């Protein structure tokens, strides 16, 4: 087996169930996705669509009682089959994660330096002085000024943006091949967001990292990533090259998401929300999970779950993908004002 042909990270019909309210409920129905080494994939979807759980399954860190079907393979090795020691090696040497809210993901009573060096010293057995030097260099790399002083401070003394850079430094300290970024900018304000994103992008470039970037922000994902994967209610519904996202998205859900983005050129325009509410994964019926909210849904959509199929150089799990069936209602063509008047009339 050569690494050239094996993707660095591969989800193979991943299905995850969690014990909720006495029964085992499905939270991820089906995720098929491959990340080639050095690529960046954006995983987008609404809250509760299973994005974070998908990312956590890579590090074998699912909630208690979770059951996995299918497989997640890191560099050809099955993560669910790993023993505890192998998992720790994976986490401390090969893959790292950056979280949404840095403040809750760091022990508030320990110094930043303690936090950054602990894994290096205790798991990787690096000498403390060497670990500290390495971590200070990393802090400089992620543009933290005054790194030595920051090392002695506690998390409460740092701003959110600064703390997120510390988290990125801690992820990079592992010298990982894979970086999982779980909405790393959601808890930050807009200018800090841009800086943090630039840092992640820079680190990826310099180190040839593979990136799985989880976000709500379609535009951001399209800007940073090579490919975009869209999740809805525990299903991976579409996967396509990022540059084709806006023009050629085939799945009805992706199109609806794109249509609901605010348009900065039209002042005071009403946002076009997707009607209905997002389904939890376990609420999905036998058909397409998006069918109840889909403007183009037909009888078949409610009855039969669509298989992912190739659409141009991507895949979409849709019975009537946008480009394939031009006869179906084009969401982009619908006049938002017409929809508004209709709603007020009712």
């Amino acid at each position: 087996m050569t690494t050239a042909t094996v993707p660095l990270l591969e989800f193979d019909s991943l299905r995850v169930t969690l014990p909720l309210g006495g029964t085992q409920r499905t939270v991820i129905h089906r995720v098929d996705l491959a990340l080639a080494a050095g690529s960046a994939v954006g995983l987008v979807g609404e809250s509760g669509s299973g994005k974070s759980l998908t990312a956590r399954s890579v590090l074998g860190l699912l909630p208690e009682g979770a059951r996995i079907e299918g497989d997640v393979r890191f560099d050809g090795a099955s993560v669910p089959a790993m023993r505890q020691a192998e998992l720790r090696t994976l986490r401390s040497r090969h893959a790292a994660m950056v979280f949404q809210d840095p403040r809750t993901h760091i022990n508030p009573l320990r110094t930043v330096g303690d936090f950054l060096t602990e894994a290096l010293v205790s798991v990787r057995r690096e000498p403390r002085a060497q670990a500290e030097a390495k971590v200070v260099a990393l802090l400089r790399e992620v543009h933290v000024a005054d790194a030595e002083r920051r090392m002695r401070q506690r998390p409460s003394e740092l701003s959110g943006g600064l703390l997120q850079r510390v988290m990125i430094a801690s992820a990079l300290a592992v010298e990982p091949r894979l970086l999982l970024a779980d909405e790393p900018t959601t808890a930050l304000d807009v200018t800090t967001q841009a800086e943090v994103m630039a840092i992640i992008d820079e680190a990826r470039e310099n180190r040839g990292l593979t990136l799985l970037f989880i976000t709500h922000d379609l535009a951001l994902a399209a800007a940073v990533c090579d490919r975009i994967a869209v999740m809805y209610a525990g299903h991976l519904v579409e996967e396509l090259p990022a540059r084709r996202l806006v023009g050629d998205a085939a799945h009805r859900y992706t199109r609806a998401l794109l249509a609901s983005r605010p348009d900065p050129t039209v002042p005071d325009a009403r946002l076009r929300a997707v009607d209905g509410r997002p389904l939890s994964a376990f609420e999905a019926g036998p058909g397409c999970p998006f069918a109840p909210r889909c403007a183009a849904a037909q009888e078949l959509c409610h009855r039969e779950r669509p298989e992912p199929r190739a659409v141009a150089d991507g895949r979409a799990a849709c019975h009537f993908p946008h480009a394939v069936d031009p006869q179906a209602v084009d969401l982009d063509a619908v006049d938002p004002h017409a929809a508004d008047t209709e709603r007020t009339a009712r």
Partner: protein
Amino acid sequence: MTSYQLASVVGRRARAARLRRLLRGKLVLVAAGAVVALVVLAAVFAPLIAPYDPNAVDPMAVSQGSSAAHWLGTDDTGRDIASRLLHGARPSLLAPLVVTVGAGLVGTALAVAAAWLGGWWDRAITAVLDVVFGFPGLVLAVVGAAVFGAGLKIAVLTLTIAYLPYVARVVRGSALKERNLPYVAALRMLGLGGGRIVLRHVVPNLLPLVLVQTATAFGYTLLDVAAFSFIGLGAQPPTAEWGLMVAQGAPGILAGAPQESLYAGLAIVVFVVACSLLGAGLSQRLTGGER
């Protein structure tokens, strides 16, 4: 009176009231701390400051009231009560200290183990603690005394067991909360092992709570040790111990010589109240007003 003067007077009163409130809280804490410190010092240096040997009988000075020779009088065998109180502070303080430290250590270990391991372990540990919780400390002490014979060591052992659930229940709740905080998951993602996360992160973060729990319990355990000695299940004569002194002085109350029971009882009450106030103050400072 001009409005300016009025405003200044009102302002001064408000300021004075605020100062009083601030000082009152602090004063109580400081006074309680001073009492506790004083008693601890007295216990440590008892042999140096006690005017008499606590067990030296004096048939010529039996059941005397306060005098220049015997500040707090003598008991029914002529032993100096002040010296007995000073020496008695040692077992009276040491026994509850061992109980609270023991219950604090073992209780925290059990609680963290239950919370961290979860599932079957949690259910087993919680069930055992609930069973212990169901027995009053006194019943345990009677059983202990019946099996091993009465004595301070047995009393300490049974009280330690009896106090385990008090510490463990509260700590387990907080440990559960702590375990589910995102930073613990983040540490796991960095490849840290469970043992290290527990010992280096979870337990240190729980320490303020453990400290408050044990500090608050200390006063009560002291009362319990004294009670056990009072009914004959703790310290045995001729040991100088506060609870035992209350019991031994009891006949004197009716005979018109209440000093032994009175002063020993006062020592217990003052010290326990000071401990409780200190514990409450600590809890407010360390856990931000919780509990």
